[in-house]
């Protein structure tokens, strides 16, 4: 993928964090293994990170570190640690779901973390202007894939649209796709909406914390 990368030394320089912090956060799982990308350069092997993700994560760790211990932070941020015990009765209180999410809800109460992430995906699509029926596709897709919520790094959920124009017939199909990046559609289809699962899972985690 042509994801924008940043070299490790530039991360350190820009953020002012130390090697010690970086390695400590990696050990704790606050920076996922998958973000460490080793590449050959003119000067030998170097480590790169997805620019936006690493800079956002370091910002989050720093702003939360004031009030939380590192171990608590792991619970909040580490993608592998999906909260097991969440039962949320009013998902619309969470910013990533919000009022838009109401249309997508399928029960009154007792939403688990995975189900909240599914709702948030749908709400994300609704906000971008997709129709409720299409957003529901995303919700169903993510609901059925629990393992994705637990390890969302590098996974994308998307809505694709394909137009078939025949004689006297024009059909537009929308499909939901869930998979590891790089996710590609055929050339006659277009991506209607794309959700970074890692980001959305994280937003739900942070929102849960705010509500609590």
């Amino acid at each position, binding site marked *: 993928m042509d994801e924008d990368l940043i070299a490790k*030394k530039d991360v350190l*320089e820009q953020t002012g964090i*130390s*090697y*010690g*912090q*970086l*390695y*400590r956060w*990696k*050990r704790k799982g606050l920076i996922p293994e998958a973000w460490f990308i080793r590449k050959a350069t003119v*000067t*030998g*092997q170097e480590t790169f990170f997805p620019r936006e993700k690493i800079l956002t994560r370091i910002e989050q760790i720093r702003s939360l570190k004031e009030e939380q211990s590192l171990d608590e932070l792991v619970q909040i941020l580490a993608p592998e640690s999906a909260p097991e015990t969440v039962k949320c009765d009013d998902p619309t209180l969470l910013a990533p779901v919000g009022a838009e999410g109401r249309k997508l809800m399928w029960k009154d109460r007792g939403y688990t973390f995975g189900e909240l992430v599914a709702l948030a995906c749908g709400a994300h699509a609704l906000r971008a202007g997709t129709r409720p029926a299409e957003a529901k596709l995303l919700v169903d897709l993510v609901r059925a894939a629990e393992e994705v919520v637990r390890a969302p790094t590098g996974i994308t959920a998307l809505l694709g649209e394909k137009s078939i124009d025949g004689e006297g017939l024009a059909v537009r199909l929308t499909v939901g796709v869930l998979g590891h990046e790089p996710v590609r559609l055929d050339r006659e289809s277009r991506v209607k909406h794309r959700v970074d699962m890692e980001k959305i899972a994280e937003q739900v985690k942070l929102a849960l914390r705010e509500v609590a």
Partner: protein
Amino acid sequence: MEGQNISISGSGRVSGGEYGQVRISGSGKVDGDVTAQEIRVSGSGRFQGEVKAKEITVSGAGKFTSRVEADVLVTSGSCGIDGDAEVKELRSSGAQRIGGSFHGHYVRVSGVLHVARDLEADVFTSSGRFEIGGLLSADRVEVKLVGDSRAREIGGENIDIRASSGLSFGFSLARGFRFGLGIGTLTVGEVEGDRVHLEATTADVVRGKVVHVGPGCRIGRVEYSESLEVHPEAEVGERIKR
């Protein structure tokens, strides 16, 4: 729930389960996953299945074919773990081999430690020999070199690698190398830390804030941000200040 105790002192075989104490002083085999308060192997013990225990002591020969989780693992004999190890405190004065990766808090090596993949701890100290196939990462890495140690990468806050103490009595390490005296060395691909002190180390790249390259080192490239000191008996290819 406190399980029963088992003790094998002749030759025996038990199935997995939940136990208080497991003692093997003869030759014993445990089939299946085990949870125990304490496991002591002074003879030869083989565990086939995952093992979870508060304390594991191996003074004979212990073999674990799967993952091991423990608060404390003390090896003075020979201990092989084929899977990953999640051990808060590891003290090895014998031979410890881990086929997967190690994750824990404190590691003290005075014998031999071999880890096929990464070793992650808060504190790593060694006065023995180690070989780490992946990344050795700790807040504090304190090594007194005995024999030849290796790691693919070392990363952390304070990294302190010292040659064996004979050197401080004024004889030259470089000369020692030339005569092939049995002095410990470290060979590593990459070292990254905030404060790095190296002796008798061969590395491709060293990156750090404050870097001290001591006698007997051969470093391809040093990248530093605050200070760099290089001993006259060290070789450094490139020096880059950021």
